[in-house]
């Protein structure tokens, strides 16, 4: 009897602590000893816009010198996926099987169908990066104007955040797609917004504080973002690839492959989407991890316990 009481007591207490304290998520849950960065593609001016499809193929752009959307397949072979598509800074596949793109140079957001035919969604905008929800809402950052804009499934554009993030840049979702996260290139926070039922953004919070350079303590240079199946957020910064747990606590900083070049884009791709890919100057690097990426063109799922 005494034993039973004690057990009930302990389990009651664990329940409380379990609710109060989210599980700690160190880098050791993600990185594999001996599996460092390796070059996945090279020869670019400024690789950017990394994204993946359901099979794990990698797609990206060369925003400065490139003329195409490039693809690296699961065998590691690179090809031009869409020719004559220069100046792209952000790419994401939608649940409709089309590839959405921020054409920064031409100040347009476009979509490519599976045959590579382009349709313009909006023009006279300053798009940097984007994310597309499973239900077809596209959110993109307008870094110079401090805006986040939305293009709804009917193609109508609206401003969903203005003046909150100093230089909104990278953009991702929680795995359940209920929270939108935007990195600040001109500050030190990753901001979290609630995706409201009508697709607007509510309740911004400076939820994640990025590590900043000692010489520039207020500016982390937050850039590209990704999410994994456990709800962890990844953001490229001046200090490296920073990882945050779903409650906004920094879990660690993954070293930049080439610290002499800017780290600007990140996604999970490759077999089982278990490889982290980053754009780092003229090269794309990858490394195998113990986790895998959340795919927003798939049905939203709750984050899995690690």
């Amino acid at each position: 009897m005494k034993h039973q009481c004690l057990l009930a007591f302990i389990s009651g207490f664990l329940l409380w602590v379990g609710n109060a304290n989210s599980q700690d998520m160190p880098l050791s849950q993600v990185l594999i000893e001996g599996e460092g960065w390796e070059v996945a593609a090279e020869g670019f001016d400024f690789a950017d816009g990394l994204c993946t499809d359901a099979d794990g193929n990698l797609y990206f752009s060369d925003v400065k010198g490139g003329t195409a959307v490039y693809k690296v397949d699961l065998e590691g072979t690179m090809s031009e996926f869409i020719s004559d598509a220069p100046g792209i800074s952000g790419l994401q596949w939608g649940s409709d099987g089309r590839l959405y793109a921020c054409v920064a140079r031409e100040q347009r957001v476009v979509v490519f169908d599976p045959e590579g035919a382009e349709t313009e969604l909006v023009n006279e905008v300053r798009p940097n990066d984007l994310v597309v929800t499973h239900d077809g809402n596209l959110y993109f950052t307008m870094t110079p104007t401090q805006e986040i804009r939305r293009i709804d499934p009917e193609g109508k554009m609206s401003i969903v955040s203005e003046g909150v993030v100093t230089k909104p840049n990278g953009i991702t979702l929680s795995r359940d797609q209920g929270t939108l996260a935007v990195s600040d290139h001109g500050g030190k926070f990753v901001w979290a917004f609630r995706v409201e039922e009508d697709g607007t953004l509510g309740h911004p919070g400076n939820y994640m504080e990025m590590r900043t350079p000692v010489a520039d303590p207020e500016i982390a240079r937050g850039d590209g973002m990704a999410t994994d199946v456990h709800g962890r957020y990844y953001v490229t910064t001046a200090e490296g690839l920073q990882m945050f747990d779903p409650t906004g606590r920094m879990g660690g900083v993954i070293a930049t492959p080439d610290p002499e070049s800017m780290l600007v884009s990140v996604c999970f791709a490759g077999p089982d989407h278990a490889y982290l890919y980053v754009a780092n100057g003229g090269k794309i690097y990858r490394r195998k991890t113990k986790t895998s990426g959340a795919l927003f063109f798939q049905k939203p799922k709750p984050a899995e316990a690690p």
Partner: protein
Amino acid sequence: MKAQLSFLLSFALFSSLPAKDEDYAPGTDAMPKEGVPRGAVTKHSWESEIFPGTVRDYWVYVPSQYKEGNPASLLICQDGGGFVRENGAFRAPTVLDNLIHAGDIPVTIGIFVNPGVVPAVKEGQQPRKNRSFEYDTLSDQYARFLLEEILPEVGKSYQITNDPANRVICGNSSGGICAFTAAWERPAAFGNVISHIGSFTNIRGGHVYPALIRKSEPKPIRVFLQDGENDLDNLHGNWPIANEQMAAALEYAGYDYQFVMGTGKHSGRHGGAIFPDTLRWIWRDWNAADPEN
């Protein structure tokens, strides 16, 4: 004097036993006693503006001895739901019943506040948990939340003293560093801190407190710290070392503090077991026969 002695004795007891975490348990002060009047606990919810979009529950304990016109002392606890639970590690309402009745502590209103969440809008989505942001961040935001939102709301119904010496803020883990941060930012509002297994580690930069304490003009805060030798050692830091650093800094800077290091883990069990004596230590200058002094 008597209270002080039993306090010292119980600390000696707890520090000398090779206790496992499970061996710490609530004592008789946390059990309802015949003839001791029970205060009322009511549950409320709150939508915050200082933490925009968050909702949370909180509980208010009002002792039966409370009389309008006599402002009560104050105990605020983070992760409030755990502190009010009748079979929990703390059982704060019962402890307050017993200690107030015995004349060990003044008539005290307890406010037990849960951390906020930004609720999910669709089925299957998780709320955005705001606990770490609210508790681990080194800023005055949480203190302002209490002073500008919760206390004015409770103050509509009950009078609470403005004397910081009779206002206590308490918490466990991140709630512990949160208690310290609130007092550090607003010592005129919170003159006493109780931290159990406090996260003075680098969750969101809280590891800097020992350094700040040593190089800041001392603040009028009385601090009680509890930790256990088997507390966490993880990516954020080492809890026992962090709490030792806090105690050493408080000692160096001349604070009125008490540090109890037990053998427990990252749980509230040890803090709960000694909670009544901790409250007696906090209010050790208070005199039931001379409540004004």
